[in-house]
């Protein structure tokens, strides 16, 4: 009874590889088609990161929740509320650091409530986070119904953070005026990359991370093996809300405004990124690297459409839909193959 299953064939790794390859194909395709419009510059790639820094944080949290087999659709509204709080708070003269801490604290409290409802009261995560979504969107309007911009006058510190360029020592280009343009990212990107690395390590090398997989694989089994499923589920939703608040700050640094309609549908972007990155909605399979590339793929599509300039702005949605469809089909094919090999 020698174990002869091939180590190389692991469908989950394969999915991740497909995602990465797809990103490369898209990106190279973009470079070839729109090279003349500056798509080949390293900065184009960095701009995708800058625009999506918040989404990367949110997608990391979403992946953790989805690993347990749950879902958190409150994240978009929570981001809107975060941004509005930041904008209005600073307008009222509260310091940038204080406001950021308040926003993070709100994320923790919000996560505790959602996590408690899902984990301990065993209410459907969809319903819980839908309620959370309505609450946040509503609260955003309660705080302020107008669009509030954060200008240098309102808060110089926050303005400085937003406009800090972290230059990268390589990959620059010389523009048509003969000036060397050094590539740069914004602080939000640094935060997002840190979050990504921390969550990657957490999922792979900590007890909590592995228990998320266990709960998603089979909650009943996890309980039988002595894991505290309720606590783990609660932890996942707390993590999601906290990361969402971190993402909210990154998002706000990018938009520099608070508005009721901000980040509409961002939760769906996060979910689609995770799914394209190989996370199963049923739980137990996936990782943040995949979700990261999922975000990049969505970002690249938007970027290509924007660079083209002639395509309607609804095309990214349609392309994302097509990709989602393809990935779901691939996933179910893999699942079928696996079932047959048994």
């Amino acid at each position, binding site marked *: *009874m020698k174990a002869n299953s091939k180590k190389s064939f692991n469908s989950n790794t394969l999915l991740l590889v497909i995602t990465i390859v797809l990103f490369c194909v898209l990106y190279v395709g973009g470079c070839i088609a729109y090279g003349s419009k500056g798509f080949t510059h390293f900065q184009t790639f960095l701009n995708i990161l800058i625009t999506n820094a918040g989404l990367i944080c949110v997608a990391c949290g979403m992946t953790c929740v989805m690993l347990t087999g749950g879902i958190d659709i409150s994240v978009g509204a929570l981001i809107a509320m975060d941004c509005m709080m930041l904008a209005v708070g600073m307008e009222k003269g509260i310091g940038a650091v204080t406001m950021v801490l308040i926003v993070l604290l709100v994320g923790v409290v919000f996560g505790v409530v959602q996590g408690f409802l899902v984990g301990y009261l065993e209410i459907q995560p969809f319903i819980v986070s839908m309620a959370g979504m309505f609450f946040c969107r509503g609260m955003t309007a309660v705080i302020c119904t107008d669009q509030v911009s954060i200008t240098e006058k309102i808060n110089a510190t926050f303005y400085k953070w937003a406009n800090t360029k972290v230059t990268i020592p390589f990959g620059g280009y010389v523009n048509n005026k003969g000036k060397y343009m050094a590539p740069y990212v914004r602080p939000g990107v640094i935060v997002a990359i840190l979050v990504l690395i921390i969550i990657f390590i957490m999922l792979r090398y900590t007890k909590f991370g592995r228990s998320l997989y266990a709960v998603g*694989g089979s909650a009943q089994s996890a309980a039988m093996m002595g894991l505290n499923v309720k606590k783990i589920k609660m932890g996942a939703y707390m993590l999601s809300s906290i990361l969402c608040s971190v993402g909210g700050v990154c998002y706000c640094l990018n938009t520099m405004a608070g508005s009721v309609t901000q980040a509409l549908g961002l939760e769906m972007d996060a979910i689609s990124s995770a799914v394209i990155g190989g996370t199963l909605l049923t739980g137990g399979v996936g990782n943040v690297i995949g979700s990261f590339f999922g975000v990049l793929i969505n970002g690249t599509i938007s970027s290509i459409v924007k660079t083209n300039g002639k395509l309607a702005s609804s095309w990214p949605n349609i392309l994302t839909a097509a990709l989602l469809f393809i990935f779901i089909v691939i996933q179910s094919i893999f699942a079928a193959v696996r079932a047959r090999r048994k």
Partner: protein
Amino acid sequence: MEENVVLTARGISMTFPGVKALDNVDFTLRKGEIHALMGENGAGKSTLIKCLTGINDFEAGEIRVEGVDGPVKNRSTKDAQNIGISTVYQEVNLCPNLSVAENLFIGREPLTKLHTIDRKSYNKRSMKIMEDLGISVDVTQNLENYSLAIQQMVAIARAVDMDCKVLILDEPTSSLDDEEVEKLFSLMRKLKEKGVGIIFVTHFLEQVYAVCDRITVLRNGAFVGEFPIAELPRVKLVAAMMGKDLDDLAEIQKEQKDYSKEPMEIEAKGLSHAGTIKPFDLNIHKGEVVGIGGLLGSGRSELARCIYGADKAQTGTLAVAGQQVKINQPIDAMNKGMGMLPDDRKAEGIIADLSVRENIILALQAKRGMFKQLSRAQQEEIADRYIDLVKIKTASKDTLIKQLSGGNQQKVILARWLATDPDFLILDEPTRGIDVGTKSEIQKLIVKLAGEGKSVLFISSEIEEMLRTCNRMVIMRDGQKVGEIDHDLSQEGVMKAIAGGES
């Protein structure tokens, strides 16, 4: 505590709403023995096990475990694991999406100095554990890449590595094939040598005699006895489980009519459904009542479900009234003139919030299709006719069925199928849980239906009942049809056939 005893349970009692699930049950497990816990479904085996593992909260009695002072009361499976009681269930309770090693160590992973998981160390330890048990697997592979048997063994390995003194195996073999079962047995024997006390729950009689040292029998929640394996031959075991004493069985004689000349109604060849019933042949003539005998869980219902298409047959052919048919789902069977009264009438039979009338016409309406609705007058006429025919005691035909007694509910379901005018009727435990008077009415009705030329497949746990009504009996054991008895139907003969084996 006695020498060599690892676990005792004394006077365990437990009630579920309305049912006494366990009544003063004793159980003793010794070091290094494999102890079978036997009983029919509903005898209380699982309830007892859940009491031992902390899932159920028993009301009276005490459990003692070697090395623990005083009575033990587990609050959760984790408590039970901590004092050395581990359980492996029929469905593998591991996470398929994690590696074998992770499944062995999750919840108790070795940590590095940085408080991260020490993957190298637990992979190495897992390899050693699996080697020690003689199971060769790549521990870094996901569990889902391995067969159920291996998964089962990983679950056992996890239990053993957690220093369990008592290993409970709850129907571990039901989804394994013969070769896998043998592997499991050799693992069990290995553990036995190490001094682990094993409680083995199974409904496969052969397996009990292959590995066990001792048997405890439960019946209807009560303790029947504890026997060394040598003192309890199969027939006696079956008698103990069913609660019949062979010696006082009165022979019941029955007139026999030769049905073999009658036209064939049902002709099944090699039908099977993976995991529930092995290929079987079965012929039923017109007007014949065929009984299916066997212990609960031996595949009686599964055989019927396979014919009826409730579990789609994966192999074999079926002919109805001489015509080859393909039955994919119950509606196909209904259209070929079959009807089936399922054994779980709460879950599969009655629709509690509908009236008696609506419950009666349900199958007929389904057979006619959604768009050919029966008129109200037709419905009432049919309801009246069958309420009268099967003597349903109900205030009116528009009474909700949930207000009727169990026996009357059963009659309504019987009426439902009679209303479709079937040529072939499958009755799965039609008399379970109903009073004696109603039972005999139903039995009479079966004989009467057969007299009218309908064929009946009759499943019951009560052998007398089948002896009274059946012309022929099919014997089931361990998911397999093992024989037929068509003459000299006697209780002793049937029980011997059910027990099988040499004794």
